[in-house]
């Protein structure tokens, strides 16, 4: 049983690490700010869930697990807020998404 939990925990941690890595690679390879943010959100949604899930299995049923669940909850609630602040700030500063150039003017108001 413990071996199983251990294996599952390390699978989650490894997959989480890979997600974070993919997010990083994407943030470097994507063409503009907004598409980079798409890639980076793999890190903070998927990566956070997997890594914290893996640590939870390591911690077992303890106060630490409850704290980890709360941390995950806070992360999932606050990271969209910061993404939104970043995107809004970029738009206000005049960074146009490349998506906009391809659309007819006035198609999206």
């Amino acid at each position, binding site marked *: 049983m413990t071996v199983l939990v251990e294996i599952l925990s390390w699978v989650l941690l490894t997959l989480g690490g890979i997600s974070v890595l993919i997010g990083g690679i994407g943030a470097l390879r994507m063409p503009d700010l907004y*598409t980079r943010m798409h890639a980076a959100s793999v890190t903070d949604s998927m990566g956070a869930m997997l890594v914290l899930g893996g640590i939870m299995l390591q911690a077992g049923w303890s106060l630490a697990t409850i704290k980890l669940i709360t941390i995950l909850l806070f992360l999932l609630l606050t990271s*969209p807020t910061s993404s939104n602040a970043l995107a809004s700030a970029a738009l206000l500063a005049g960074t146009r998404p490349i998506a906009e150039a391809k659309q007819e003017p006035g198609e999206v108001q």
Partner: protein
Amino acid sequence: MSAESSAADSKGAGGNTARPAYLRMLLLALVLMATWLLWSGFFKPLLIGLGVLSCALTLYLVRRMDFFTREAFTLHYDFRLLRFWVWLGREIVLSSLQVARVVLRRRIEVEPILVDINAGNLSTVDQVLLGNSITLTPGTLTLDMHEGRLRVHALTAEGAAALEEGEMQRRVAALGRR
């Protein structure tokens, strides 16, 4: 996010309005302090002192944000929210895989598009929930929310089409229903 919506919206608010401001402050102070104690688990004077300081600072900040004079949002969600989170978790996994595929392709070929989602049928709180859920799912990003319309930046046409199909919106709407 627009500021004018929070004061105007009454659909998502309720319950808490009758309570006077000082009582709500006291209540929040107690909850904050209890959280601190539970979190730290240490009862040394220095750490408790730091806790009191942090609580005072938090109270000062939320007061500056007019938290106590404005109508508070009370969430009426129950176990349905848990079910929504499970569904959202699955969506996050699936769309992460899609984005990962785009990222790891030999050549980066992306055609991001902008779509407008009409969410006028949702209360303000639910609109925020929808906007944040969209942002949380990799591949779609809420840029702006104005008068019930959400401007969404999508990495792929499929992602945009899935949003316009509106399953997420239906699920959020079902959450708000009592």
